[in-house]
């Protein structure tokens, strides 16, 4: 029996380079917010760059120096939601427009992966591209339109 975990990717265009005063608060909050994720119930894995602390040095679009990627894996939609919206992370989220542009299209995608799978940035960006192109489906969906995990547990994670 294969278990499935929830993969999440979101991208954001910073309003200024990370080493400028405009982004200083965001950069300062990152260690504690990432540490909070790491110890949150249901956390499995998150993408990090060669420094190993976070993914802020990765640029998933080679043409865009300002586009950051955040990618992680969780045991369930509820676990990710609890971290994103029912923790100190919410405070950072409410300040998003101080640091990030509002993107015209989907900036977040969710999909199910076999337990143990670690999505690559390219794979994650492709999910966002498909979500933007075709709208929510089991291949790439959103919190607003969740899809259940495949397999024998289908339905257990449906909302």
């Amino acid at each position, binding site marked *: 029996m294969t278990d499935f975990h929830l993969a999440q990717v979101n991208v954001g265009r910073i309003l200024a380079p990370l080493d400028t005063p405009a982004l200083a608060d965001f950069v300062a909050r990152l260690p504690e917010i990432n540490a909070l994720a790491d110890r949150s119930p249901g956390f499995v894995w998150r993408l990090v760059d060669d420094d190993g602390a976070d993914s802020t040095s990765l640029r998933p679009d080679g043409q865009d120096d300002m586009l950051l990627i955040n990618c992680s894996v969780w045991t369930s939609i509820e676990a990710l939601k609890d971290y*994103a*919206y*029912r*923790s*100190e992370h*919410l*405070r950072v*989220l*409410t*300040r*998003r*427009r*101080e640091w990030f*542009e*509002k993107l015209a299209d989907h900036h977040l995608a969710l999909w199910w992966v076999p337990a143990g799978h670690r999505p690559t940035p390219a794979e994650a960006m492709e999910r966002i591209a498909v979500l933007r192109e075709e709208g929510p489906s089991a291949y790439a969906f959103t919190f*607003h339109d969740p899809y259940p995990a495949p397999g024998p547990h289908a339905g257990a994670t449906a909302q």
Partner: protein
Amino acid sequence: MTSDDEDGVFESVGALSDRVRRALYRHVVASPDPVGRDAAAEAAGISRSLAAFHLDKLVEAGLLAVTYQRLSGRTGPGAGRPAKLYRRAENEHTVSLPPRTYGSVGRLLAAVVDAAGLDRELQSAARSAGAAEGEALAGALDPVAALRSRGYEPYWEERTLRLNNCPFHALADEFPALVCGMNLALIEGLLPGCAGGQDWTAVMDPPPHGCCVALKSKTNNR
């Protein structure tokens, strides 16, 4: 809304026309934990059997829900029957005469504000609106009373004031970054106008249920 739906809402809300029932209802919904019959009866100043009668009427009306729990903490044989406890039912009831649907307008506006990325503009407007409300209070209410009067249902958890109800629940659930940021700004704006409000700070510290904002008073000696 069909006339059947409307009748259902009227019947639910009509269950609160009784003064004793209102007292029981308010006591139960203000508590972060489910409430037993004895505690509810004592709060309303009535007998246990009368409280049980009215509490069950509120359950029938869909305003309260029932859970069973052993209050003693004992388990196994001899622990006794689990106590019948009451908490607020999950569903929302809205009565507007004549019919007004501000909820759907709020949802539409929130979607547009969210899509336009106007978080900071909304927070600034909320802070001003909170400050205007605070000025109107002119120190007549302390923060606990002011938040209670706005439907937040404050309760103490040790030295932290928590808010059992989110007045913007459905919108906060759908647009958390936008609406929770607005709510924090609103409360921060409101505090200075409350009696002793200068000594309070509001922070975002979401518990599993209820409002995401918690408050602390520098002078609170609880």
